[in-house]
């Protein structure tokens, strides 16, 4: 059996982060090879190295047995490698055909031959069973269609090996299943697939071989035959993971956060939230789950006051929060752990102490007679660094140089130390290692135990099952169903996330 791709001792570091450490494995021609590992394990980095987007610090890449230096993506493309990125790289203002032929335009008389390009896209989409309208603007496409465009882009470049980085994260299970059919079709034509996923069931369903990466290093490469999901989990995390539910206390607090009939639209006017209502009581954790792009981001932003709903309102601790005013929401007692911590949660260019102060610069604890008492801020920061085990050189460390997980801990430390009555926690463990994840979960439980109302937004089913008292499933901007935390199981939630049972269970 020939190896389509072989990686030897690939290492890549970003500053102090060692994203890949001496990674070696081979991918057989005509197989579907899965790459699994925790968030931040280094999968995307490795694929970017393979695709020539990053240069490895050391190591060698062999294509069909020949060593190749992947200087740029062009080299990779000419080696027959194509990549569908985790975050799509499509240009919204261009048409499907223009996107697909970007960089290899068909030229006639010096101008781009739109008609020929569209004809060829139509032909390709027919041949591989990927339905798209070549003349449509990408801005007007659904996520699933965008992904088909990404795949066509790769095929149009004559790729023999296709890398798919978390292709199913944005898909409904049905769409995912269609994708798998297509992928199997590809291998039948002799193509090779590398496929990254967090969904172990998908991995089990579709792959021939699995490579597990942990902390940037390869744990093992195994054949799917005879493998169980539990084996995979053990290899990924390094130990048995306790998926057991946290103890729950019945909710007797009164409503502390109420969202009533909220609607929102994106820039194009497409509805992103449709008539969403929910209620979180003091001492209760309400989990909101959904596949990315089904409205969680918008919901979180509206609750935090960062986005104006086109309709509806948010009440915090019994008072209507003025929409689009995050300061007011904070004053009413809401704290927020944002999903996008790099852009929103921290100011990377300033110190931990300075980051800790945000939102509390007028707090008499840190300010007296209109002067910020930096010594106190620094002392508080030092205490929080201790308590949250933030690995840093101290309060004066610049946040931008912290690792992602530690950055997240800075955010949590700031927000959770307010003793606020309402917590909005958005994707708290994304990109956080498993040890830290447990600590974060502990902190969230602690906050609930002291009586805070917590709205937990997550894309990970196990996380909401572990923590939440009640689980709301968002699908296409609507609450597709509510499940009790005690009785929830992944199947049921998964079905709701896919929009499977809108009719059966409309949120009360």
């Amino acid at each position: 059996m020939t190896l389509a791709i072989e990686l030897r001792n690939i290492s890549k570091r970003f500053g102090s982060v060692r994203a890949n450490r001496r990674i070696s494995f081979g991918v057989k021609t005509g197989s579907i090879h899965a790459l699994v590992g925790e968030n931040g394990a280094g999968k995307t980095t490795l694929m970017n190295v393979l695709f020539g987007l990053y240069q490895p610090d050391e190591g060698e890449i062999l294509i069909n047995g020949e060593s190749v230096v992947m200087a740029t993506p062009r080299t990779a493309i000419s080696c027959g490698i194509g990549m569908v990125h985790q975050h799509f790289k499509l240009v919204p203002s261009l048409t499907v055909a223009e996107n697909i032929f970007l960089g290899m335009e068909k030229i006639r008389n010096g101008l781009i031959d739109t008609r020929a390009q569209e004809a060829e896209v139509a032909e390709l989409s027919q041949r591989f069973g990927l339905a798209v309208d070549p003349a449509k603007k990408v801005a007007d496409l659904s996520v699933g269609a965008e992904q088909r465009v990404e795949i066509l882009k790769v095929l149009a470049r004559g790729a023999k090996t296709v890398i798919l980085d978390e292709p199913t994260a944005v898909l409904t299970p049905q769409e995912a299943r269609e994708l798998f059919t297509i992928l199997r079709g590809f291998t039948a034509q002799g193509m090779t697939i590398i496929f990254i996923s967090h969904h172990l069931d998908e991995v089990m369903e579709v792959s021939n071989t699995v490579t597990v990466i942990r902390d940037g290093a390869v744990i093992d490469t195994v054949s799917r035959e005879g493998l169980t999901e539990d084996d995979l989990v053990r290899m990924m995390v390094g130990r048995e993971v306790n998926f057991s539910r946290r103890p729950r206390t019945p909710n007797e607090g009164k409503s502390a956060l109420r969202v009533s009939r909220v609607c929102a639209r994106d820039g194009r006017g497409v509805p992103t939230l449709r008539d969403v209502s929910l209620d979180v009581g003091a001492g209760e954790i309400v989990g909101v789950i959904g596949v990315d792009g089904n409205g969680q981001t918008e919901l979180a932003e509206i609750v935090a006051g960062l986005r104006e709903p086109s309709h509806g309102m948010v009440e915090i601790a019994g008072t209507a929060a003025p929409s689009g005013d995050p300061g007011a929401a904070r004053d009413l007692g809401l704290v927020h752990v944002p999903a996008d911590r790099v852009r929103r949660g921290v100011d990377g260019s300033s110190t931990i102490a300075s980051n800790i102060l945000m939102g509390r610069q007028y707090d008499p604890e840190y300010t007296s007679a209109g002067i910020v008492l930096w010594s106190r801020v620094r002392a508080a920061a030092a205490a929080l660094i201790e308590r949250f085990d933030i690995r840093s050189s101290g309060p004066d460390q610049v946040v931008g140089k912290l690792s992602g997980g530690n950055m997240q801990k800075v955010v949590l430390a700031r927000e959770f130390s307010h003793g606020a009555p309402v917590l909005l926690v958005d994707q708290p463990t994304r990109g956080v290692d498993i040890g830290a994840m447990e600590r974060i979960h502990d902190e969230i439980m602690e906050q609930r135990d002291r009586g805070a109302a917590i709205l937990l937004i997550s894309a990970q089913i196990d996380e909401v099952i572990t923590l939440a008292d009640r689980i709301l499933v968002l699908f296409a901007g609507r609450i597709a169903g509510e499940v009790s935390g005690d009785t929830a199981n992944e199947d049921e939630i998964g079905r709701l996330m896919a929009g499977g049972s809108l009719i059966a269970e409309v949120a009360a």
Partner: protein
Amino acid sequence: MTDRSPEISDRRPLYERYEHLIGQALAILIALIGGTVLVLLIGENPLLVFATLVDGALGSPERIASSLLQSTPIILSGVAACIAFRGGLFNIGVEGQLYMGGFAAAWIGFAFQMPPVIHVIAGLLAAVAAGGLWIAIPAFFRARYGTNEVVSTILSNYVAILLTSYLTIVVFKRPGGWSETPGIAETAYLPQLMTYSRLNLGIVIAIVAAILLHLFLTRTPAGYGMNAMGRNRSFAEYGGVPIRRNTFFILLASGAVGGLAGGVETLGVHHRFMEGFAPGFGFDGVIAALLANGNPIGTIGTALFFGALRSGSLLIEVDTNASREIITVFQAIIILCVSAQILIRNRRDSTQGERRWKI
């Protein structure tokens, strides 16, 4: 804007803390080399030119005072620019605010009779108000509708210069005079600091303004919020800093200080408003602020440097055959070198896709 937020002072190693200073010194060196080549090109002796430059800037107490005098409006314009800059905004209209403030102060000076100290204060307040009002409309549209403030403030510069000319020449012209208003009452003069120079209280006002801004930014909660806005707008928004309101008031404050720069100039130096009384000071201030990376204390330094260059260039005109415009060329080269930070750019970050300032 990627270079907009200055590194905050912290307990970094000494080298890191001062690496930008080292970089700037090297940049000036490169600029000097470039300047030398240029001076040679136009057929002058570079040593003579540089020596004359230094002599003209620092050669005698009068000349030092004159350098300080030249720096005064640049420091104040620089502080005005810093305010916007630190709040993540861009006020390129300092020039226009300077004209408006200069005119307003002069108007108070010549049109009203007041007791001594009060007259000066009234004049300066009028300058502040005029500068603030002049930027109010662009500020409102920036805050409310996101209208690009760079363009609106550039355009208002033209209008301000024409408007003050109109007021000076058509409405308030001194009979029989050049294009200038009547002189202001002596009660409105900013006191001179020494007999042999026109250097006046303005330099003190300017330095105090810079220090106050520095203290405001580093010591007060509002300054903290404003600083955060400049460094990472979404972070500040998320943290509850009222972005829109701040945007409006930051621009307003920036314009007000720009107006003050003009007021200090008319009350302290010219004792009347004359058209073309301070061309280019607003732009020099903006650049001084950018070079100091928005740090008001640093702006004092860069502005003093520019003032010395300007003052030194006067002697160049007298003692050599080079045009004093050669100084603008030096200035531009220095700015380019410093902005590029060629020598100190941290290459480790180069894999990160950097977002440029978009329209």
